[in-house]
């Protein structure tokens, strides 16, 4: 056995590769991953956008840490921005102003950082919707959904902690709302705020503490969960959309080297480029307009960053006077109810894959995605969830809606309160109907062909439009989907029907009773014969 058997080792590259491989065994990794196949689809790029925006955030964030001072020590601002000269503010605010007005490229980095953060949360959200509506979370990927969910929550936490760092009027009011919210939690609320703020709000500790979270703990967790997330993508291999030649046992696409290296690598630069373009041309979070934090003033039309909107909206939709004194303590239902609502909503999103797995009892691995129409009830549940979120989100802008559309604020709030309950139900029914209608249309096209627009006159004088049958590949696109039928309630081996079984049967009916089965060969043959008669 010789160590030196590979032929191509001449030249600098060959020698260097040999040097590296003899110390790292890297040729094994290249052999394993170099030609790994990835399927191609635009919707698979959403997760990539999330990953790339995180890289952008790390790069620009590192730059900002070199100049930012996470301290609430009062200083007199002496920088370049004339309107605030001599005003007392925290070192955090002053250093943020210095980054914006005295360091070349500082404002650019701040703006790219903030825009990339907005994009980070947005792309995670869209990626989750893609995964949800295509059923990509099914076995074996349930745990990866959970990991992704944790990343979504971490991203929001990263966003909020970062937003609070400059210690300006807007972020201070955001923290005040957090303080008020936590205060309202039963039993532990008061103490948690004192631990968080190091005493009373605002205190002089919070910026430093949020900074530790923002640049150390949270990014470390984000990184760990991204590594886990991608590790599972490698272990499971990527899902693919159904289509001719694609099966549960294969993956069809392009190899990492060279095609994906070019396309995904290039895509990173595209995302970075677009965010840089936005950062160069569009102002975000102009703290110099707000001024330093002061507990007394507040500007009308205050809005949190977009991803916190749904939580703020939940706070706004509570009806008046919801507070009780029980057993000598204060129960702030105007806080507890919206907090519970958000927790339940997020928990439902977290748990959905496990619920669906339980309802279907399906133990097979699913690597072929569902077209949303082919899972009507799941699609409808997703639509209801999106609508619920959207109403909460709109509520966070209730005042802006009122002033822009010249309607009363009370009217906007009351409408949204009703919509929060009614709109998801309407969305559910509408989405389900649309999905079923699309399935019927697919069936129709399959059985009777598509309209060619060619009208012919028959010998008898009758006019008719010629329908043309699909070719085998297009036909496969319409017939190959995962089909479920409601389970029948049968006694278990002990001869009993348990409550759990009943519940599962009714859930399964809820999911699959309006089922439209894929066309079978027999049906297709009959349809053809019918057409020829």
């Amino acid at each position, binding site marked *: 056995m010789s160590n030196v058997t590979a032929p191509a080792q001449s030249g600098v590259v060959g020698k260097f590769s040999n040097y590296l491989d003899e110390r790292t065994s890297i040729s094994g990794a290249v052999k394993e991953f170099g030609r790994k196949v990835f399927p191609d689809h635009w919707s698979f790029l959403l997760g990539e956008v999330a990953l790339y925006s995180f890289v952008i955030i790390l790069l620009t964030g590192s730059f900002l840490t070199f100049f930012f001072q996470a301290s609430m020590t009062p200083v007199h601002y002496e920088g370049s921005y004339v309107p605030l000269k001599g005003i007392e503010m925290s070192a955090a605010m002053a250093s943020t102003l210095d980054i914006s007005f005295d360091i070349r490229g500082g404002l650019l980095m701040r*703006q790219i950082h903030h825009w990339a953060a907005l994009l980070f949360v947005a792309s995670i959200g869209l990626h989750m919707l893609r995964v949800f509506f295509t059923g990509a979370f099914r076995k074996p990927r349930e745990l990866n959904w959970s990991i992704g969910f944790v990343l979504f929550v971490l991203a929001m936490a990263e966003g909020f902690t970062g937003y609070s760092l400059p210690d300006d009027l807007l972020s201070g009011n955001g923290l005040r709302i957090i303080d008020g919210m936590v205060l309202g939690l039963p039993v532990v609320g008061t103490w948690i705020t004192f631990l968080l703020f190091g005493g009373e709000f*605002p205190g002089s500790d919070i910026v430093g503490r949020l900074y530790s979270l923002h640049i150390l703990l949270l990014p470390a967790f984000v990184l760990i969960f991204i590594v886990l997330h991608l590790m599972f993508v490698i272990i499971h291999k990527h899902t693919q959309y159904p289509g001719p030649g694609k099966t549960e046992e*294969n993956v069809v696409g392009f190899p990492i080297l060279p095609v994906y290296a070019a396309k995904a690598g290039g895509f990173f630069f595209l995302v970075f480029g677009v965010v840089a373009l936005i950062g160069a041309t569009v102002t975000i979070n102009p703290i110099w307009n707000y001024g330093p934090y002061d507990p007394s003033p507040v500007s009308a039309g205050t809005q949190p960053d977009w991803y916190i909107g749904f939580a703020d909206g939940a706070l706004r939709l509570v009806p*008046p006077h919801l507070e009780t004194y029980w057993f000598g303590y204060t129960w*702030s239902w105007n806080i507890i109810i919206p907090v519970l609502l958000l927790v339940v909503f997020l928990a439902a999103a977290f748990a959905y894959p496990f619920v669906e797995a339980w309802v279907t009892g399906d133990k097979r691995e699913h690597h072929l995605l569902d077209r949303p129409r082919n899972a009507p009830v799941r699609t409808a549940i997703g639509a209801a969830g999106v609508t619920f979120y959207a109403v909460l989100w709109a509520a966070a802008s209730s005042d802006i809606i009122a002033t822009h559309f010249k309607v009363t604020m009370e009217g906007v709030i009351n409408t949204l309160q009703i919509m929060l309950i009614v709109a998801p139900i309407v969305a559910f029914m509408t989405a389900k109907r649309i999905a079923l209608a699309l399935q019927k249309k697919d069936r129709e096209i399959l059985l009777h062909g598509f309209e060619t627009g060619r009208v012919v006159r028959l010998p008898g004088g009758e006019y008719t439009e010629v329908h043309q049958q699909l070719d085998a590949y297009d036909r496969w696109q319409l017939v190959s989907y995962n089909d479920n039928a409601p389970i029948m309630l049968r006694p278990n081996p002990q001869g009993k029907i348990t409550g759990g079984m009943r519940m599962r049967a009714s859930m399964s009916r809820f999911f699959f009773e309006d089922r439209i089965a894929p066309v079978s060969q027999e049906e297709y043959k009959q349809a053809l014969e019918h057409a020829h008669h």
Partner: protein
Amino acid sequence: MAKNESGKADIVPANNAEATGTGVVAPDAFANPGLPPHRPRVTDLDPKAAKRAERTVYVLFYLSIAASVFAVYAYMFFPIEPENVHSVRMNTLYLGLGIAFSLLAIGIAAVHWGKALMADKEAVDHRHPVRGTEETRARAVEIFRESDEESGFSRRTLIRNGLIGALIAFPLPAIALFRGLAPMDVDPNNELKHTFWKKGMRLTRDPQGTPIKASELTIGSAFQVIPEGLVDLPEHEMLDAKAKAAVLLVRLKKEDLNWTSKERESWSYEGIVAYSKICTHVGCPVALYEQQTHHLLCPCHQSQFDISNECAVIFGPAARPLPQLPITVDAEGYLVATSDFTEPVGPSFWERAN
């Protein structure tokens, strides 16, 4: 549709009902036609198009170099001049455009290269079930069994239980350490129930700190108020105190004010009333005063309070009226507080009532 026409025929559980659950595997399904024939691209058929694509890609890479150089140039030649906001804008814009175009050019070039020029024949990988092979799984179980035997983990129960107990106990000191996040000698409950206001303290303008005479308030006017002496506090104590002590002072016609008791009425002076500015919902400043309707509006979550009726909540998520600061005038005609607030100001908290 299907369930009626084809009857029960296709919902008979598949052979492997254990695994498929509600999934239906129809015996009569269509067969997968396999991958469609490969369709060549323009660049595969037309050498001129391929040449053009090649040119586009390398030109973009060179443009990217130019844009990067431009960004460095912009850094040097669009400097930030002190006290010149325009120079900040130019610096941000040109540096940003240089960086953005250098990145975009790389991105477009690489993607175009990948799509137009690199081999576009789709490859097929085989998937393996995620679960390990039976052999691997058996060996894994065996390893655990062997190591259990060799260590005596489940046989020597005293050791095992001791280990579990110790592992549960050892993080406890870390939890205790976090108690230090809040000051040791401060009772939150007490802090939240008192503000800077004291009997005889003058009401002063925010932020100047100058006292206010009752005669300075015309009907319908409103003042942002802080307690006398607040501005002399060190910055941090000032902010902490102000976060509870901020007050809104308004003068209404006396007949526009409705009182639930004589005592409450005595907290006002000639139609002048002082209410806490800190919203009882989550603590935003209730900053918007509607002169015509005598309503106060919180811009954060739109709670509305009616000054005519002791600041009762008339809309929005707040549960309680804004606390009133009892006021009168001193010998020189300046407005003064007759006591601190009689209830905790700001958001509700658990121990508020006791």
